[in-house]
């Protein structure tokens, strides 16, 4: 049954590969050995006039459905026949902005396990995009000249990579802390400078650091203040003084009782419905 369906699938792939409108499809396989392939859906990267995108419009190829074993280098190699590739960026989902240039620390942000991803491929020349759109495939991720590791070999390599290098970590931490300390010192100096100095409209900012520090502006603190106010007001209020107040309290009490009564009734009703009273 599987075999038959496989044959049928293979047949259709030869004749015509369907793709969503606006995209073209390229079959991609892990290696020669595989029978069936995934499909990369690609189109030129385009955005509306008013939206900002850091990707150069003409030279960028947008790729959907990149299989998990396909890395950035690999995609770059597969598409280089269409023209020199400037950069490849794999992302979990489409994101218009280019990721920050500064790479995140690999000590503090370990690389996530890849799933199916999307890619932005920037060619050096616009011609690369159109050449890529005309690709027929199937593309092979792992070839003899460029084998891609998977399974046991990949995990062992990952394990070796994950063995930490304490020296590098120390250097990174030290540089970070140095800049951080500098930044904090600057902020403090600035705050000190502004202390008690009125702005152009004459307002003076009161901070925690001055001679008479104030409460920090936190939600908890403001809630505490409100609560205090409420209690103060409640003390002044007269309870059950007017007839209508009396009536309302009574009604409220009755409502509570009714509610409780209904609750218990419901509980018993439910148990009855579930035949919970049958002991065996």
């Amino acid at each position, binding site marked *: *049954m599987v075999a038959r369906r496989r044959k049928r699938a293979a047949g259709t792939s030869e004749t015509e590969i*369907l793709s*969503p409108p606006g995209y073209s*499809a390229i079959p991609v396989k*892990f290696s020669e050995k*595989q*029978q069936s392939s*995934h*499909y990369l*859906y690609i189109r030129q990267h385009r955005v509306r006039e008013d939206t900002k995108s850091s990707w150069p419009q003409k030279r960028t190829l947008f790729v*959907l*459905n990149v*299989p998990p*074993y396909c890395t950035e280098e690999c995609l770059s190699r597969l598409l280089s026949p269409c023209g020199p590739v400037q950069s490849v960026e794999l992302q979990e989902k489409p994101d218009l902005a280019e990721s920050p240039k500064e790479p995140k620390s690999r*000590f503090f942000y370990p690389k*996530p*396990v*890849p*799933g*199916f991803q999307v890619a932005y491929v920037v060619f050096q020349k616009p011609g690369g995009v159109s050449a890529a759109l005309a690709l027929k495939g199937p593309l092979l991720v792992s070839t003899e000249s460029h084998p891609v590791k*998977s*399974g*046991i*070999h990949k*995990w062992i390599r990952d*394990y070796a990579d994950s*063995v*930490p290098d*304490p020296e590098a*970590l*120390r250097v990174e*931490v030290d540089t*970070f*802390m140095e800049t*951080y300390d500098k930044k904090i010192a600057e902020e403090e100096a600035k705050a000190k400078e502004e202390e008690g100095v009125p702005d152009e409209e004459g307002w003076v900012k009161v901070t925690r650091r001055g001679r008479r520090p104030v409460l*920090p*502006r*936190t*939600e908890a603190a403001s809630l505490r203040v409100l609560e205090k106010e409420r209690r103060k007001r409640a003390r002044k209020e007269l309870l059950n003084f007017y007839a209508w107040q009396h009536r309302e309290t009574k009604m409220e009490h*009755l*409502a509570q*009782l*009714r*509610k409780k*009564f*209904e*609750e*218990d009734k*419901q*509980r*018993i009703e*439910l148990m*009855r*419905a*579930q035949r*919970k*009273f*049958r*002991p*065996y």
Partner: protein
Amino acid sequence: MAEPDSLPVMESALEGTGKEGKKESSKKHTMAGSPVEGLLQPVKLSRAELYKEPTNEELNRLRETESLFHSSLLRLQVLLGGWVEELLKEVKLSEKKKERIDAFLREVNQRIMRVPSTPETEGCFRFLPPAQVTVVGSYLLGTCIRPDINVDVALTMPREILQDKDGLNQRYFRKRALYLAHLAHHLAQDPLFGSVRFSYTNGCHLKPSLLLRPHGKDEHLVTVRLHPCPPPDFFRPCRLLPSKNNVRSAWYRGQSPSGDGGPEPPTPYYNTWVLQDTALESHVQLLSTVLGSASGLKDGVALLKVWLRQRELDKGLGGFSGFLVSMLVAFLVSTRKIHTTMSGYQVLRSILQFLATTDLTVNGISLCFSSDPSLPALADFHQVFPVVFLDSSGRLNLCADVTASTYRQVQHEAQLSMVLLDSRADDGFQLLLMTPKPMIRAFDHILHLRPLSRLQAACHRLKLWPELQDHGGDYVSAALGPLTTLLEQGLGSRLHLLAHSRPPVSELFYTLQWDISQDPPRHRDSGVLTLGLLLRPEGLTSVLELGPEADQPEAADFRQFWGSRSELRRFQDGAIREAVVWEAASMAQKRLIPHQVVTHLLALHADIPDTCIHYTGGLLDTLIQGLKETSSTGEEALAAAVRCYDDLSRLLWGLEGLPLTVSAVQGAHPVLRYTEVFPPTPVRPAYSFYEHLQERASLLPRPDKPCPAYVEPMTVVCHLEGSGQWPQDAEAIQRVRAAFQLRLAELLTQQHGVQCQATATHTDVLKDGFVFRIRVAYQREPQILRETRSPEGMISLRDTPASLRLERDTRQLPLLTSALHGLQQQHPAFSGVARLAKRWVRAQLLGEKLTDESLDLVAAALFLHPEPFTPPSSPQVGFLRFLFLVSTFDWKNNPLIVNLNNELTVEELVEIRSVFLATRTQLPVMVIITPQDRKSSIWTQDGPSPQILQQLVILAAEALPVLEKQLMDPRGPGDIRTVFRPPLDMYDVLIRLSPRHIPRHRQAVDSPAASFCRGLLSEPGPSSLMPVLGYDPPQLYLAQLREAFGDLALFFYDQHGGEVIGVLWKPTSFQPQPLKASNTKGRMVVSRGGELVMVPNVEAILEDFAILGDGLVQAVEARSERWTV
């Protein structure tokens, strides 16, 4: 297991999973979005309803409840009243059925009277129709309970067919049996009856009774039991006193009477059985005058009957029957302890209170208030019977057949129940009357004696000839008392309670029945004698039985009792004493010392060889035994790891040169709370097996070798003191922590010479072969992660995923670990139970869907809230109760409250329940509440999904009866691993893995024949390089699969050496999807009816399974018959 049954449920259950994958919120909605059947909803009354004008009647009713509701205890009672009413409705007979039964009884009466009499012939038994047919017993009193309605009918035999000396030598009993046989012969031909069978009255083999059932659809409505009885005043009461003999030794032994014989031994049991027949009517009269019109008393009796039945106390010879409790009620009424206006619940309470606080084995009670000097004294009865409760005649002991053990069991149950009732628990009623307590689930160890014919020899060995004569040759009941006494004495401080099954018991019915054309069953046919041992955990730790000093006169008794096992020993205080020492090195073996004791004593004193003793106590132990261990269930290995952790924490406390001091060191790993299924062993890597990474002092796995042994570092959280030096920015704190991790590694290596490896988030430490993962934590960090600044500059605290995770890992997890560590010190069986439970859940491939912690908490609940049981003292019984809890707990409407350290008060519990009801829809399906986590149930936040929980419940419900049957099988359990093997035919795709790359392959349920070298030495080797840590290819593979295909399929795997990964497609994701950039993952575009849609590219995905697991995957089996694209 009936796997096919579970299939459709899983199928239908899975329909919701598609939604669940996409959004957190929608998962919860699948359960709560629509008002689900059988879910308690918070009461919503409209404003109009709540505030409408009350009627007078409503006002009164509400006022009445209000006054009761002031204390929660009273409120509970009112609620209880409602429950009791409902329960009684369930068990009591309806009027309609009563009419049908009455009609049947009239018919029976007529038919009996019409049975023809036989002509009078000399020397032969003669049948005459009964002089009187009377209905006696609970049916008449209206206290009989469903489902098995029995109507007892007394047939008074006419005086003409009996003779003067019939009381002697079983003559009366034989005539009685013949009388019944004649009746049976005639009634069996009557088409009115669906079945006519014999049985024993209360299990007494001298007294058969005839069971009649109506024909046709009423067959299961009622059983009429016919009991022949002598005409009134036929026997002279003084002949039947407990001190009199009515079975002559000469006759019994088949010898001709010889004049020389000494005094004949008294036959108290025989006398009692005769007396029981004469008193049938007087008892029913007494009961009907007492219970008469008092419906509360009747309700009370009915409740007590349910109570007894749930505890399996009411059946068999010497059972604590419903009749006995009715008489007890009568007694308490006569002593004014119960008033006739009391409600059923109050009667139940009073009787339980009475049973719990009085001891009828010492101070018997009597319903007879006459001061007739001719009556025997209570003391006379105490001499021959273990339990004494005399009826109104003062001559019949109603509790004659009740053994001391049975009575102790009743007492024990009553005490437990009273504690439960007084604890004001919300579900006390449920636990008291609705939870069955079968022997296998109630007792720690069970032992079967089989074949029963061995007991005959035991009777001779114990010199029980007079008892045999008295019991009419019933060697089982004759031997029962002495045997239990023997074992109770031998088990001493190890034993809390010993219970026995009451013969005769058959497998199908509570009482033995047989067809009238068959021979009656013999004593040995009643199957097996089953004993249940409830152990005392504190007594289990000792391997020594200390006897008297050698020169004391008791020493001889001690030697005689223990036989060759008794030895003279000199003790540290210089005393020389007799003592018995049992061989037991590990906790598991110590738990099984009772087995040694029982085997030794039975062989020594009762001539019962160990081949006849089938001991069920540690049969499940093999499942949590280490790879090569056979004598221990891992408690010792865990303790060794914990000791090493203690050493490490001392090192950390004493570390010099850290800029901030250590404020707390807390364990956060299952090993450190004794619940890791397979405890770690010290690692001794063989360096030649690995690749070396010298510059970082690490070993690496080699692709050409099998996967190295799995070493999981044990997490330890190390809190550093708070200080102004800590930065107030999350990123910076992270860096400072990393600096501390580095510093920690440096200092530990410098000062203590241990191998360390630091990363940004933790420091791995290799100490004595154990690897610990120290995580530095800063108390205020979760707080800082929670801070968000609003545009106006206001700082508010909001939980974020990162803050919750950190809070859980550095605060909640250590707290839980230390609480459970404490629990293990109180209950030594906790470790075994928790690990068996986890082993089972993981073997069912559900281990990754339920967190470690949640399963540990469920196991803890069995110890902290054992009601109506006592905390388990053996892993076996604990595991059975785990299965029972999981399969019966109403997760929808109740939180599982685990009151660690008893921190929550009753008021808080009430509060928690009401909060739970109000917020039910936002909570996960499985809610576990602890004192540290009162609202959110953190350990079940991320799963299980409703479908997985459903599957777990189904599997547990199927496993429980199978396992219980295996354990209760006296011929041995067969294959105990049956319930641990998962059903595989429900999965759509099976991925078979190569054992070579499964590091924990040896832990599999069925331990594999072939094993691989995992690069370990048997002797301690060098320890300068860090072993390979946490490298488990199947787990790495699963992580990749879940990331890539998580929204298309679910993956199931047993982390303890599973060889197969089960894959279930999510039905919803197989629906064709519209074209969208966000759902192209793993899909392809096809044309369906001229429209372009996306469907999963299954062919390619199946090949991806093999590619991603290259080297690990052996085969991908697609069971395509189960799905189509």
